[in-house]
């Protein structure tokens, strides 16, 4: 800032534009600098000082340039002191202009500039006062050089820096003297952060207690969370948890969000309790008209009482804390409920499993009992039936017609009983669990051939021809429940033999499009037309069946139909009374089956058409 600065001559407009440009640049840079975390306060102060300096400097520079350019002689500016006063006037003018334009103060730039100008104006005013005092009261010839102005500005800077320096000193001595007056904003910020950071009740309480204790330098702080009138959880920081008996007294506290500070209460039971426990303040946490709990604050470590500021901060923080705690409590309750639910479910499952096991054991016992019972019931019936039939057949002497008639009646009764026992067994075996279809790939031809073989004696005993006609080619396996399907096959063939007095029973296995078929044809008594419709229903017996098989149960065909249809198959039936019947089923080949025959090792028996003939 020497008066002999070299300047471009004779173009003041450019200079003023330059002024404006440098001003804006300066402002921008300082604001930008401020953004690099120098600390809020420090940043602000620096910015303002910087802007002030820039404002004054530029103003001075502008004036000097102007004067020089127009008059060529800077000394016309007068002494630096008077120059300062000149600055004041200028700056004041600028302030008015900017205030006029940026009255709403919404623009950051505008506000910064106004503050800068204000500060510059204040600084210049200070300097002017300094000069005036030294000149007139101390008669010092100061400010001959411009550097005096810089000295003045430095002093100004020091004044402004007093507060931050003081705070720094206090922070450093805080450990020794606990004189720390905390920053309420940072405490509230910490509490807000704590409230928002977690839903876990324990963690939330820890964070809040820690924030309060550390900032306010408390000896202890404690949380008591209430749920449905009872203590739900407690948490303490700096002291052990309290026995509940004392807490009960706090129930009488009025439902408000104002904390009760011990020294502000009247002498009451509550106050006595608080003093006894060493609690300096109790803040009820009320969220939505419900008491969520208490915050118990111990005294300060420095043994001071809680100040107005402290009470204010607590007042502000308590509603937020109350809500956070109420939420966390809700979440905690849900989690506890979940855990209980899990346990309940596990217990219920274990119970069910035990019940299931019991049922299975019971089922087994029932089975064993039924087997034994049927065996025991059949034995005397065998004797009754045996001897009666032998008598009726004349084995022990000729019987007259009436004797035979009576014997036949008795025999009939015995036969019915045999049938009833078979019913009993069948029905009990039909119950749940027995009718589970378990499929495996089986060779239909093989199992049919086996059943035919087993019944060959029966057929022979009745002097019937039993013929098995296998297919001309080996068939692919079918997905079947082998055990149950065998029973159906046996049932069909056995029935055919029972209900045929003379002639033959032909068993045929053949392949159709996507299916495999079993057909059992007999030359027996046939089924009357009227009985066709209900033939496969439970316990149904056609009229002409009784004579041919007195102990028939009426369940065989019903079971056959169920087994076949449960496996996705179809029953085949046709009959003419007096001529014969055809019973059978058709099973679908699964979608996984290839259309063409799968290469199977051919069995010698199946290669040629095998006819099992047994002649009596």
């Amino acid at each position: 800032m020497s008066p002999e600065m070299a300047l471009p001559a004779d173009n003041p407009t450019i200079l003023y534009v330059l002024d404006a440009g440098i001003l804006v640049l300066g402002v921008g840079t300082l604001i930008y600098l401020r953004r690099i975390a120098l600390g809020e306060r420090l940043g602000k102060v620096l910015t303002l000082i910087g802007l002030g300096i820039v404002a004054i400097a530029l103003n001075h520079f502008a004036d000097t340039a102007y004067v020089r350019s127009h008059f060529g002689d800077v000394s016309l500016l007068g002494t630096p002191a008077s120059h300062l006063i000149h600055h004041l006037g200028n700056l004041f003018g600028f302030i008015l202009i900017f205030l006029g334009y940026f009255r709403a103060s919404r623009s950051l730039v505008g506000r910064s500039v106004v503050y800068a100008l204000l500060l510059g104006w204040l600084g210049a005013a200070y300097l002017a006062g300094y000069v005036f005092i030294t000149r007139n009261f101390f008669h010092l010839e100061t400010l001959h050089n411009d550097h005096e102005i810089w000295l003045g500005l430095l002093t100004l800077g020091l004044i402004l820096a007093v507060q931050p320096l003081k705070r720094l000193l206090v922070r450093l001595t805080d450990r020794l003297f606990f004189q720390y007056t905390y920053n309420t904003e940072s405490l509230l910020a910490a509490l807000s952060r704590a409230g928002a950071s977690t839903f876990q009740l324990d963690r939330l309480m820890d964070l809040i207690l820690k924030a309060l204790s550390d900032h306010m330098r408390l000896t202890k702080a404690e949380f008591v969370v209430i749920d449905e009138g009872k203590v739900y959880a407690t948490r303490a920081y700096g002291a052990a948890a309290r026995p509940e008996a004392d807490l009960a007294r706090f129930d009488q506290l009025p439902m408000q969000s104002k904390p009760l500070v011990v020294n502000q209460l009247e002498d009451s039971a509550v106050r006595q309790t608080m003093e006894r426990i060493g609690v300096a303040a109790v803040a009820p946490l009320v969220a939505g008209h419900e008491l969520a709990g208490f915050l118990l604050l111990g005294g300060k470590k420095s043994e001071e009482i809680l100040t107005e500021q402290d009470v204010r901060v607590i007042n502000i923080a308590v509603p937020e804390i109350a809500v956070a705690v109420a939420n966390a409590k809700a979440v905690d309750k849900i989690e506890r409920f979940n855990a209980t639910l899990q346990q309940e479910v596990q217990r219920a499952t274990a119970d069910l499993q035990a019940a299931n096991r019991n049922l299975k054991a019971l089922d087994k016992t029932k089975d064993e009992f039924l087997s034994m019972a049927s065996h025991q019931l059949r034995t005397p019936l065998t004797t009754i039936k045996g001897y009666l039939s032998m008598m009726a057949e004349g084995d022990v002497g000729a019987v007259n017609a009436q004797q035979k008639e009576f014997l036949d009646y008795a025999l009939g009764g015995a036969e019915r009983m045999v049938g009833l026992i078979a019913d009993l067994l069948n029905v009990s075996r039909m119950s749940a669990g027995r009718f589970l279809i378990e499929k495996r790939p089986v060779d239909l031809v093989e199992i049919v051939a086996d059943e035919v073989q087993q019944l060959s004696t029966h057929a022979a005993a009745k002097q019937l021809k039993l013929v098995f006609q296998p297919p001309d080619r080996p068939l692919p396996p079918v997905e079947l429940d082998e055990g149950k399907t065998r029973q159906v096959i046996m049932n069909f063939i056995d029935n055919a033999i029972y209900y045929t007095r003379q002639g033959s029973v032909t068993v045929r296995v053949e392949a159709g499009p996507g299916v495999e078929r079993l057909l059992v044809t007999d030359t027996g008594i046939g089924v009357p037309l009227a009985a066709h419709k209900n033939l496969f229903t439970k316990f149904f017996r056609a009229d002409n069946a009784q004579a041919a098989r007195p102990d028939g149960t009426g369940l065989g065909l019903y079971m056959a139909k169920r087994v076949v249809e449960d496996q996705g198959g179809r029953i085949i039936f046709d009959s003419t009374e007096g001529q014969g019947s055809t019973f059978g089923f058709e099973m679908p080949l699964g979608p996984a089956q290839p259309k063409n025959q799968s290469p199977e090792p051919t069995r010698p028996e199946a290669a040629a058409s095998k006819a099992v003939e047994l002649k009596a």
Partner: protein
Amino acid sequence: MPRITQPSDLPQPGAALPPNGKTVLIAEDDPFIARMYEAKLKAAGYNVTLKNNGRDAYQAVKAAPPDLMMLDISMPEMTGLEVIGALRGDGYDFSASAAMILTNSSSEQHQQLAKSYGVDYLIKAELTPRDVLERINAKLGLSGPEPAA
């Protein structure tokens, strides 16, 4: 009329048919049922041996193999199925000497076992003695009396 309490009170039935040269062994522990089959088979010309427990039956079969053996399952000493199992273990030739299980048990296990041995499984209560005779005739390839009216 004197009360019939024991089968032995009845007069012994005589053979209605001439002997057919076949031997049948019946293993049955119920005396009434055993007597019943014995009467029927003897009348049909069979040579019948009665045993009332499994062990005796097993030894008798080993000593003198019959043409056919009819075995009950529930018997003292050895069950009918155990007898067959033991005979199989001894390498008994069943093709020359057939076996049949004649029982009142409805157990599926028993049925499966008999099936695996390849022997017929007959339920006594469902058959009259005549039916049983017809089965035996068929098994041994003999013709029997005409079917009942």
